[in-house]
């Protein structure tokens, strides 16, 4: 079972948030979750500004000890600022079998409108792909998923499932009177899931920071594009959504068919090169 878990993190209060995360992992594991996924920056809160430097964790920090113990039976994926040498990253940390199995640094840092990430963070350069408990797992942190080329690159590395942790402020209006931001995530990941034949799992932080509210949405975009919300539970102001592996249905896409079946990654890469050549000719 997969659990998507979120709550309202306290800004800059990492120890407090980590203890909520530990409680939530135990709770989810007791209910049978093998993989527990938290949103982007759940450890620290999102709008940190200068608090990035004092909130960022080191990979070898003692702060991980509680979660590392819990990870012996449960794979844990959490978002936090990471300090590496003199750089800070907006990262997802994967804890599995008592160790930090993978760290992914967000590649696309939104720095426009209400966002200012590149002011505080360095951009990652390596694709987020790791061998997870449930199979090869891809990672896209929030804005990463707005870049179809990156989403495609992760897909082309052949993950069995793709996780999309996010800190997405609720704003704007869709045609059906929902927040545009929330609608957009469903339509975007639905199209990716349908096009790539891969399940996408989305989880957003909740709460309010300086008057900006996060929706706390969680859903799966099934390989056929259908949006599913799983089994929902709220305890101690923590929201859980549970998905059984049959919900995720990783393999069914192979039998139902879809556009990805005729996909040639070599051809796609060639098309990108053709586009690059055309651009360069235009610029020359």
């Amino acid at each position, binding site marked *: 079972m997969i659990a998507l878990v979120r709550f*309202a993190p*306290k*800004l*800059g*209060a990492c120890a407090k948030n980590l203890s909520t995360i530990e409680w939530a992992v135990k709770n989810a594991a007791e209910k049978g979750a093998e993989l527990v996924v938290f949103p982007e920056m759940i450890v620290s*809160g999102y*709008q*940190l*500004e*200068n*608090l990035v430097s004092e909130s960022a964790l080191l990979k070898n920090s003692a702060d991980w000890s509680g979660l590392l113990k819990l990870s012996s039976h449960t794979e844990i994926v959490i978002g936090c600022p990471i300090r590496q040498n003199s750089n800070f990253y907006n990262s997802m940390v994967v804890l599995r079998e008592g160790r930090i199995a993978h760290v992914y640094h967000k590649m696309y840092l939104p720095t426009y409108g209400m966002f200012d990430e590149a002011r505080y963070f360095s951009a990652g350069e390596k694709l987020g792909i790791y061998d997870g408990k449930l199979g090869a797992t891809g990672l896209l942190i929030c804005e990463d998923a707005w870049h179809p080329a990156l989403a495609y690159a992760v897909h082309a590395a052949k993950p069995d499932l793709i996780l999309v942790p996010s800190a997405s402020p*609720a704003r704007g*209006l869709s045609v059906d*009177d*929902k*927040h545009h931001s929330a609608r957009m995530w469903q339509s975007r990941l639905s199209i990716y899931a349908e096009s790539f034949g891969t399940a996408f799992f989305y989880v957003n932080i909740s*709460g*309010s*920071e*300086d*008057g900006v*509210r996060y929706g706390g949405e969680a859903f799966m975009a099934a390989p056929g594009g259908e949006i599913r919300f799983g089994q929902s539970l709220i305890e101690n102001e923590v929201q859980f959504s549970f998905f059984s592996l049959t919900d995720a249905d990783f393999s069914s896409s192979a039998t139902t068919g879809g556009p990805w079946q005729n996909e040639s990654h070599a051809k796609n890469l060639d098309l990108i090169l053709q586009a690059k050549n055309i651009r360069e000719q235009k610029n020359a």
Partner: protein
Amino acid sequence: MPENIEKILPLPETPCELWVPHITEILRAEIQKTGLTKAVLGVSGGIDSALSLAFAVKALGAENVTAYLMPYETSNPSSEDHGKLVCDHFNVKSEKIEVTPMANAYFSQISDLTNLQKGNVMARLRMIILYDRSSQNSALVVGTSNKTEGLLGYSTLWGDMASAVNPLGDLYKFQVRALSKFLGVPSELINKPPSADLWEGQTDEADLQMTYDIADRILYNWIDLARPRSEIAEKLRQCEHDPALVEKVFKRVSFSQFKRKMPVIAKVSRRTINREFRNPRDWGM
């Protein structure tokens, strides 16, 4: 045949069912994360403070909200009646503290005060009362200024603009009206001409020399939809409204920019407050 302004410069429907829980939740979270549970606000008898009151009641419960009626001797008596009406309607306790003795103590020492100056003094005295009462009650001050007046600068700096959390700050006047109807604000308050009630017979629209309807259409298209001002002026011309209103709005917005910012700081260090030293307001909460 002139075009219809509602067709040429339309305003969107207000998504009340989406925004009421959204704004309520922000108000609740931002107050409660400070460790406080209560709110105070000034209730003028107008639609804006009535809507803020409605949000505060939804967010915190009526028992945790105190409304202050703060008339001056020239205030229209119907304002106080409407203030009491909305407090009774939402079952909120209200207290009346007249600003007359405080204001007159100052006015008696200064001659030649204009109505505008007097109005600003009253607005700032009300701020002093609200901040003092909030301290007394372990409460936060809930704001009552909407986006239209915030952009037009039609408000008193350190007066009615002062608050800890403002549920209306991103809502244009037309959205305030729609949400007020949705939340059951008494119709007497919704239907009367908006007035700061700083002197007898004053109305917002006379002060602004334009209707809120026109101001909202210009601001919504310019600010929210990022349409060029020249295009908006052309559309006004098409429906036989004065295209010069766009420039008038622009001048008001640009001239009042200082009201929407903290004071200018003379920079000398390498880490100046709010320039390099940037921390969220919710730091540690």
